[in-house]
């Protein structure tokens, strides 16, 4: 569909022009962090938004990627890409192992189980001090790809922007394929999907693993970029942050996930002007947005635009 490529092209243009509008490295840094969150959210949105399966534990996979990189690269001197792949593989294996039993659960029970898995992962990372450095975390070597060191905000920006584009492209491809339709179908009606030949357990596991891998890769890159990784990046609050980005931007909207990640990465920084009141403001904004736009930002705006144009057309 040209519709698909249009959105992707628009995103590419925005990403290409964005550095021109960012006056210094502080803003570039925010854009990089937003981009890494967006990569996680695009994957998470496949699970939560399209397949309709809640996860309150995806920061766990972000953490596994980050710590795999930290441990393998910094302690064991593995090549960065190999470590990234190893982290992704570990995340995939763990996700696959838990996927079938827990994705049989529905609604709040699924939320509970994924929350539990995420917390268990973060507690392991916090506790296995000899390997992970415990609550203080670990210093991580810079990203080195075939002898080239990725260094400085500008270079990092292009790396993350490129990867985000690829992620969005993959997600858009998936959604508009038999797999994507199977995922959306099992969200719409699990029983109907089953009776039409969709092995719903297989597809739930598939998208759970896929979203875990996206999170893990973003975690690996984050570890390199930040140079320091702590267990807080894998904990419950981080998981909540990720889901919130997805829902805030708009469930079942890939670009919504990107927008949600961008806004909710930047917003807390902007709210620091409220100093002591920043957390109150953040909580309030979340509540109000979700109460008044339960479908999230992008779908609500798209709905408004559509209503406008169809009204105009009738006149």
């Amino acid at each position, binding site marked *: 569909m040209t519709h698909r490529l249009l959105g992707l092209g628009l995103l590419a243009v925005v990403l290409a022009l964005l550095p021109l509008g960012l006056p210094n490295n502080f803003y570039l840094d925010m854009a990089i962090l937003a981009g890494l969150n967006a990569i996680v959210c695009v994957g998470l949105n496949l699970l939560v938004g399209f397949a309709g399966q809640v996860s309150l534990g995806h920061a766990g996979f972000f953490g596994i990627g980050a710590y795999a990189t930290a441990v393998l690269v910094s302690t064991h001197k593995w090549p960065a890409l190999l470590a990234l792949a190893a982290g992704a593989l570990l995340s995939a294996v763990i996700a696959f192992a838990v996927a079938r039993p827990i994705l049989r659960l529905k609604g709040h029970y699924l939320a509970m189980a994924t929350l539990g898995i995420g917390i268990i992962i973060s507690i392991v990372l916090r506790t296995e001090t000899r390997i992970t450095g415990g609550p203080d975390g670990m210093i991580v070597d810079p990203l080195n790809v075939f002898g080239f060191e990725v260094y400085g905000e500008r270079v990092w920006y292009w790396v993350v922007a490129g990867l985000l584009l690829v992620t969005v492209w993959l997600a858009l491809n998936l959604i508009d394929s038999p797999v994507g339709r199977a995922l959306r179908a099992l969200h719409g009606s699990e029983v109907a*999907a089953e009776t*039409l030949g969709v092995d719903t357990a297989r597809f739930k596991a598939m998208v759970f693993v896929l979203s875990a891998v996206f999170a893990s890769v973003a975690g690996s890159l984050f570890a390199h970029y930040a140079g320091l990784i702590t267990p807080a990046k894998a904990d419950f609050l981080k998981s909540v942050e990720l889901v919130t980005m997805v829902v805030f931007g708009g469930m079942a909207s890939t670009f919504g996930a990107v927008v949600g990640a961008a806004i909710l990465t930047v917003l807390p920084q902007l709210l620091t002007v409220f100093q002591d009141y920043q957390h109150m403001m953040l909580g309030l904004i979340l509540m109000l947005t979700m109460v008044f736009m339960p479908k999230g930002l992008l779908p609500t705006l798209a709905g408004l635009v559509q209503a406008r144009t169809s009204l105009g057309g009738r006149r």
Partner: protein
Amino acid sequence: MSALHRHRTDALPEEPPASAPRAAAPLLRVEGLSREFGGVLAVADLSFTIAAGTVHSIIGPNGAGKTTLFNLITGVYRPSGGRVLFDGRDVTGMAPYRLAALGLSRTFQNLQIFMNMTAVENVMVGRHRHLDTRLLPALLRLPSLVRRDHAAADRAAELMRAVGLERYVGTDAASMPYGALKRLEIARALAAEPKLLLLDEPAAGLNATEKKEIGAVIRRIADTGITVVLVEHDMKMVMGLSDHILALNYGRKLAEGRPEEVARDPDVVAAYLGSHG
């Protein structure tokens, strides 16, 4: 119309035409099937067979166990006892998606439309088992996958035309009227190219004209050689379409036979008409 015909010639060549002498082995055999809910038997020790190429109706008052029977046959519920044999194979307790692969397809009394998709996408999900459902080709949008997807979309649109939904192809399912959604479920079920199609009250909630149209659609489906099992309260439709009728009450068989036999059966008249009178 043409879509339905192509359906037979292309997809089910091994199936004997409807007029051929019926094979001795039935397409579906149900033996002593039971299912209880909280101590109450919704289906009780039920046995019957369905011959290939027929329209077989199942009637009975509300709560007789018709939908439960469909759920047992299609693997949605597990039976408490008894067996289901499809095409000579014991399929008792088999997962619905496996049964779908064997050629079983159904619609639902309470609409189970994918409201988060367009109409044509709903029907395309019906093509699921005929498409490339691997992850990697989908992520990379391989040309071979795209080609088959386009063909599936064409086929889906054709089926929508066959049930009279041509004007809704790209419409969001959520914004379609009830009557159209009823047909969309039929088109979706047909997209799977079933041998046996189970329709649970396809005419419920429709007006007289719509009922007539649905009746004609079912007739055409049956004419392509697909075996149809019909649950319906509209007796006129049932009498007009069926080769064979099974009447249930309280989960048990009340009567069985040719339409005119069952209609005359005093038990059926008492139970069924009594509660619907």
